[in-house]
């Protein structure tokens, strides 16, 4: 019978503590809209920050609260926007699918190295003591500070140069700030996309000395372009995306082959092609060929 006392005390104790927990859960309860929770579940959940908010939870909260149609999750793209719009009862704006490109093509075989670097394996760490590990002070350093930042495994160092794995890249843009040389850039995905893979602003002769893949500013591409989309600034060619139709003529004439083609897997939208009569030859057919058809199935 004397066992009764400890039983009573322990029961009372647990009862009181239980009450405390109950009170606490009521008093400190965080009210949340169940809709926000649903939206959070639909988001990719990588907390990459590409939307401009610190994490998926915050993006969901803002989206549900403001019902702002311009709030886009670049990772989920248009498919996700459509689904979110359905749930929230609004029509979301179209998201342009983005991808990351590298404005450098100098690897260990094509580019001369400056010194035998033995410090910390990080691109920023190199910049404190050298202009770069390679003799080109403007291109990719190649030690991979950006690789760790990518949550989608889309970046890889191959032979001392950074490469983007297109299937994995979702265009979140987190890697852009991680490059001390600013050779990573976000660009709109198209079925065919051309870009100049060089950032060197040295004179052509100097560039040629240290990198066989570097742009020498010869301006052959400028002359070849029929759409005025290429120009050379500071001895380096740049393609203007708003004017470029991705015909590929500049790439054909480039003597150092530094203009790259990237082909993205996209749902091809059949659009009507504006006939230009220029017969630029980019599609290897003259424009007036009957084979074009009404829907202009060129897949641009």
């Amino acid at each position, binding site marked *: 019978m004397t066992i009764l006392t400890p039983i009573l005390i322990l029961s009372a104790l647990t009862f009181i503590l239980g009450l405390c927990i109950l009170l606490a859960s009521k008093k400190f309860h965080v009210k949340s809209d169940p809709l926000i929770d649903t939206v959070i579940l639909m988001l990719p959940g990588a907390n990459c920050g590409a939307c401009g908010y610190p994490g998926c939870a915050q993006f969901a909260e803002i989206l549900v609260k403001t019902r702002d149609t311009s709030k886009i999750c670049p990772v989920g793209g248009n498919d996700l926007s459509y689904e979110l719009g359905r749930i929230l009862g609004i029509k979301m704006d179209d998201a342009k699918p983005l991808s990351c490109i590298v404005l450098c093509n100098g690897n260990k075989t094509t580019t001369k190295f*400056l010194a035998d670097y*033995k*410090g910390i394996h990080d691109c920023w760490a190199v910049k404190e003591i050298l202009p770069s590990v390679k003799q080109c002070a403007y291109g990719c350093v190649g030690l991979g500070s950006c690789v760790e930042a990518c949550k989608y495994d889309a970046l890889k160092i191959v032979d001392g140069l950074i490469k983007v794995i297109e299937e994995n890249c979702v265009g979140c843009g987190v890697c852009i700030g991680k490059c001390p040389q600013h050779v990573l850039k976000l660009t709109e995905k198209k079925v065919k996309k051309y870009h100049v893979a060089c950032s060197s602003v040295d004179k052509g002769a100097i560039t040629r000395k240290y990198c066989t893949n570097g742009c020498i500013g010869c301006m052959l591409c400028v002359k070849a372009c029929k759409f005025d989309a290429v120009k050379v600034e500071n001895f380096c060619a740049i393609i203007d995306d708003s004017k470029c139709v991705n015909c590929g003529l500049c790439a054909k004439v480039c003597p150092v082959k530094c203009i790259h083609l990237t082909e993205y897997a996209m749902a091809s939208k059949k659009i009507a092609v504006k006939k230009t009569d220029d017969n630029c030859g980019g599609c290897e057919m003259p424009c007036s060929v009957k084979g074009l058809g009404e829907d202009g199935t060129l897949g641009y």
Partner: protein
Amino acid sequence: MKTFKCGGIHPDENKFTRHLSIETMPMPKLLAVPLIQHIGKPAALIVKLGEQVKKGQCIANADGFISASIHSPTSGKIKKIENHPHSGGKFVKTVFIESDGREEWAEGLNTDEIDFKKLSLEEKLKRIKDAGIVGMGGAGFPTHVKLSPPKDKKIDTLILNGAECEPYLTADHRLMLEKTDEILKGLSIIASFFPDGLKIYIGIENNKPDAIKLMNEKASPLGFEVVVLKPLYPQGGEKQLINAITKRTVGNGQLPFDVGCMVNNVATAYAVYEAVCKNKPLIERVLTVSGMAIKNKKNIKAPIGTMFSDIVDYCGGIASRTMNLLISGGPMMGKAQYSFDVPVIKTTSGILFIDEIKLAEKKERPCLRCGRCEEACSVNLKPWLLSNLAQKDVERTLEYGLNQCMECGSCAFVCPSKRDLVHWIKYAKVMNANIKAIGATERQ
């Protein structure tokens, strides 16, 4: 023997050139004078391509409050002006001057010695500023700014830094032996800027007994006290020197004038003498050429702008085919160079040619938490913690005193795991600066 309060290490001294007197190097054909050789804004160019210049003529003016002017070390023609490697590691705008062999001084410069006491304070300060004198111990802070501390800071102690704690370097040592009177005159000139109640010390490490003896003979009659210091690295650091001699502590974020002290290097004092008494701008300096991979080790007086490759030729060439490390400065705080085509600047205290096979195999091992880096740190920091946080959570390093680190290298010297501690700390500083900059632009 006096020394500073905490930390410190004693690397092998390797002062192979302590008995070699200073040799004056002949003027090379082409000089490369960078426009930044000091702390602060780069100097603003005032000459043009193709222009003829005289020796000592000002070719770039100090731009802003903290800046210094740059002068031509020889008479000749401006050959080219372009970006060129700098011993600090970056590309810097550099003026290339082709010497015409005549060594004609510009008007009014390189006069006979005058008595500095006849000049007023303003005149002396103007001469120091016009001569472009900067701290020649390695930091490169413009001296005319240093000599004008804020009005509310009273200076009561002046210290001449003759410690030269870095291994291999003996330039200051030889300068103290061969130009003693001039240095003391320079020290007096500096002392004249703080006339009331100034106590003047000359700090020399006890591995230079001949310099101590000579300084004692010559300086004591002038009222300067020679203080013998323990040869502990980094004895020559400002904060450590002040603590050793006056027992005062320069705290975080403070400068020497906050505790009433001022420290000047021996070579700077010599340059001050030349500027005030002979109206000579800073166009040459004494440096030590040493290391096991150079044929002839020397202490040389070289013009600013001399390429390292020219110095190699003057010193007999590279002795070892496996030479793989070229250091500008000392082995503890100097910078490794990737090319021989860098010029001597105002703060180059030495050039070392090292044949270090072991460095090539160096690999970082994990931190053993042995605590030796903490014991060695002369600023009371925890390098093991800072380097671990630099890899994981960079912003927290600021909480643990990151910005107090003077990168002396004592921690990395003692680490048994051969961790690149100083590099991680520097990396943390850079990343924090980036974060701050991004924060500033976002707010805009």
